[in-house]
């Protein structure tokens, strides 16, 4: 297992997971989300080829109600 920080929380995942697989495990495949990895946005088209690495800091965001 590798340890990452996901939306501010420490989490463990299998190694060799890519971002598309992570999104799938979280149940968000097909949802409008955006991912930032270590401060850099990872475009959707690169999710499938971007591997999760130990120590990564991920932010996954959605649009919510706001004024």
């Amino acid at each position: 297992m590798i340890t990452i920080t996901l939306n501010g929380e420490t989490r463990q995942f299998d190694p060799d997971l890519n971002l598309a697989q992570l999104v799938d495990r979280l149940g968000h495949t097909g949802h409008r989300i955006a991912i930032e990895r270590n401060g850099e946005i990872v475009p959707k088209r690169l999710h499938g080829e971007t591997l999760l690495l130990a120590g990564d800091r991920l932010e996954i965001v959605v649009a919510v109600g706001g004024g």
Partner: protein
Amino acid sequence: MQDAPFQIADRVYGSRLLVGTGKYKDFTETRAAIDASGAEIVTVAIRRVNIGQDAQAPSLLDYLPPSQFTYLPNTAGCYSADDAVRTLRLARELLDGHKLVKLEVLGDAHSLYPNVVETLRAAETLVKDGFDVMVYTSDDPIIAKQLEEIGCCAVMPLASLIGSGMGILNPWNLKLIIEQARVPVIVDAGVGTASDAAIAMELGCDGVLMNTAIAAAQHPVLMASAMRKGVEAGREAFLAGRMPRKLYSASPSSPTTGMIG
């Protein structure tokens, strides 16, 4: 009389009322209120996905499909230019390259008053990065002009503090901003009821943006309808040109001749 089109960046809109999507009881009420308001542009916030919660639960996007509305992602809760820029870059990724955004950089958690220094910094970065920036700011005409010169596509001064419902506290500053502006001026924040929206439009604002005034009303859907009419009435009154104010009139509306007796 034909009104000039209400254009923001490269698109023309039919409604001059822009609304937020926060603080409603549920998504059904959100949708009903927005339908009653007639708004085409709706603001949304960008927040972390709730990890561990039901990922299949309905979301705002199910009730307000981006295909039916123009989304205006905001930077609510950001207190620095860097946080605001980061948030809007995520919004652009989230919304498939969508460029139209609402920039707001707050200065104080108590009053939610804008930090115009950070706002100017963020605006410069975002405009250079290709965003169409609608910018929330104070009612300072000098800052409003500078934001326009940076390249913001709309300037959005407050009427009064966010969520206060205090109405338009400084119409004369708004008038100065409107007179000098060459981009749309939209009053954003502080509107409390329909007459506030009408006054903003009578001053010559191009539009009004609000959230709490509708969502925190006793009957949000009815207030949304009232706001729609307030904005429309105010716009028509502005175009019609009001009569001059005078202390008294020696010219009654009824004929002075033909009196009985």
